[in-house]
């Protein structure tokens, strides 16, 4: 089954076509990397997929629901984690978990059960009453990821999930992502760092509102005869109409 199916997805703002007939599918349990330069149309595409912006043309389903007619149900079936802003610094670990559980409509008993499971899995039980702002960055990221999964979404969207952390913490985080994917949750990662793109099962690269390349990291490097994904990315983006100094 496909978790995301986009077909000719298009969004115009006045005369400007931010997303231009984009089509792709993401399988259930896949780790999919969504790359593009600043201004390539990534954010607009994601805002459509998470039900925050209506497409001008084309269609998409996320977790089986139509983003145009069933946006509420799409939003209930996805999780979202942005690196810096998804947790409340002045709330404790437990309060953050309860807040997100409540927002996603879980009842108190479920919040308690899943909250305990999160604390146990992360080895956070000792820090349950610590303010989030007192936690190291790596802990915050793991907690933010767990909280984005508390309602067991079909698809979780991650925005540069491992930026800034040390290389060991980054790998622990990717192991969490792989385990999540192995349990059947689709993971949709946006990033412009090769460090993160290399970990995805498959990536797409957007240029000027269109998908310019898509495939496994290895296949893309081969296709472009490039030693790194950065090199693939730079070659594609340099051909962009929007490429400026």
């Amino acid at each position, binding site marked *: 089954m496909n978790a995301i199916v986009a077909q000719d997805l298009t969004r115009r703002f006045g005369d400007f076509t931010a997303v231009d007939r984009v089509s792709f599918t993401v399988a259930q349990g896949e780790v999919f990397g969504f790359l593009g*330069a600043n201004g390539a149309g990534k954010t607009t595409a994601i805002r459509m997929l998470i039900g925050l912006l209506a497409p001008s043309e084309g269609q998409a389903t996320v977790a089986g629901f139509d983003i145009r007619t069933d946006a509420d149900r799409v939003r209930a079936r996805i999780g979202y984690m942005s690196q810096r802003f998804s947790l409340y610094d002045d709330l404790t670990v437990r309060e953050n978990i309860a807040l997100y559980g409540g927002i996603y409509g879980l009842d108190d008993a479920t919040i308690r059960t899943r909250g305990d499971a999160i604390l146990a899995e992360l080895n956070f039980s000792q820090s349950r009453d610590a303010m989030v702002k007192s936690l190291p*960055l790596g802990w915050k990221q793991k907690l933010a990821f767990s909280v984005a999964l508390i309602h067991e979404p079909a698809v979780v969207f991650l925005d540069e999930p491992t930026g800034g952390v*040390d290389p060991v913490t980054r790998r622990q985080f990717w192991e969490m992502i792989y*385990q999540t994917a192995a349990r059947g949750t689709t993971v949709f990662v946006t990033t412009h760092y090769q460090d993160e793109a290399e970990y995805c099962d498959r990536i797409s690269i957007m240029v000027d509102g269109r998908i310019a390349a898509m495939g496994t990291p290895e296949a893309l490097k081969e296709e472009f005869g490039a030693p790194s994904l950065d090199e693939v990315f730079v070659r594609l983006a340099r051909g962009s109409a929007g490429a400026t100094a």
Partner: protein
Amino acid sequence: MSAVRVEGVTKRFGDTTALSDITFDVGAGELFGLVGPDDAGKTTLFRVLTTLLVPDAGRATVLGHDVVTDLWELRQRVGYMPGKFALYADLSVAENLAFFASVFGTTVAEGYETIAPIFSQIEKFSDRRAGALSGGMKQKLALSCALVHRPDILFLDEPTTGVDAVSRREFWDLLGTLKSAGLTIVVSTPYMDEAARCDRVALVQGGKILAIDAPANVGRRFPRPLFAVRAKERAALLTVLRTFPHTASALPFGETVHFSDRRVDVPADQVIKELRAHLGAGDLHDVGIEPIAPGIEDAFIELMGEPAAAA
């Protein structure tokens, strides 16, 4: 002559030791990188070297001037680009540049030759508000402002964080241009792949320097033969590799897992053969194993695991 000399610098904030007995030198004309994650102490170190913070212990000189006692002389000769965008969003590109020139008692005209390689790329947007520039253009304006008083040394704190791959590469190309004009540059980054663009790098973690070396040599600090292992079942591959009785390390590296065997004297062929049998028994498919040269990140992780590792 050393452009930067740091000897035993320590800086604490309350109970947190941001810098712990840091010692290193940067040669004149060198492009020197500080590579490490957030909270490693990179920003604190920059603030000490640019005279904005006084160290609790130790001594640092920049261009021969002590950062504590000679701060006024030093400030005229140092260019600093902080990690956070620190320009005036409501002033235009030209106004920002004129402001920074005037703070240093100079003019844009006097500094123009120095900033030309960078500023010429954004000059056509001179009347645009700085807040309305794209990420890559903001970065070029910030660099122009840091250079307009013609400093002899440039400190850049994570200039490429949050910038896309094309702008990042252009930025590193610019640093190469500035270096060939004779400028000493100290630059920090959390991204290991950027370290390769430096003459030498210091790996920084937890307020300490783990190692200092040329980028090409850092990988050699990894003490065991290393292998890249792949399999169709990625999550399972890690689990199965860690049950191999001789595993020293097994860590995901993009599409592969980097594996090292604790028996350093067993030939690679033998390791591959045994490992292949183990992975096959673990029901993994499309298994590939090849010896590889360790990179900066392999070495960084290894050094992180050695407490009190000396530079």
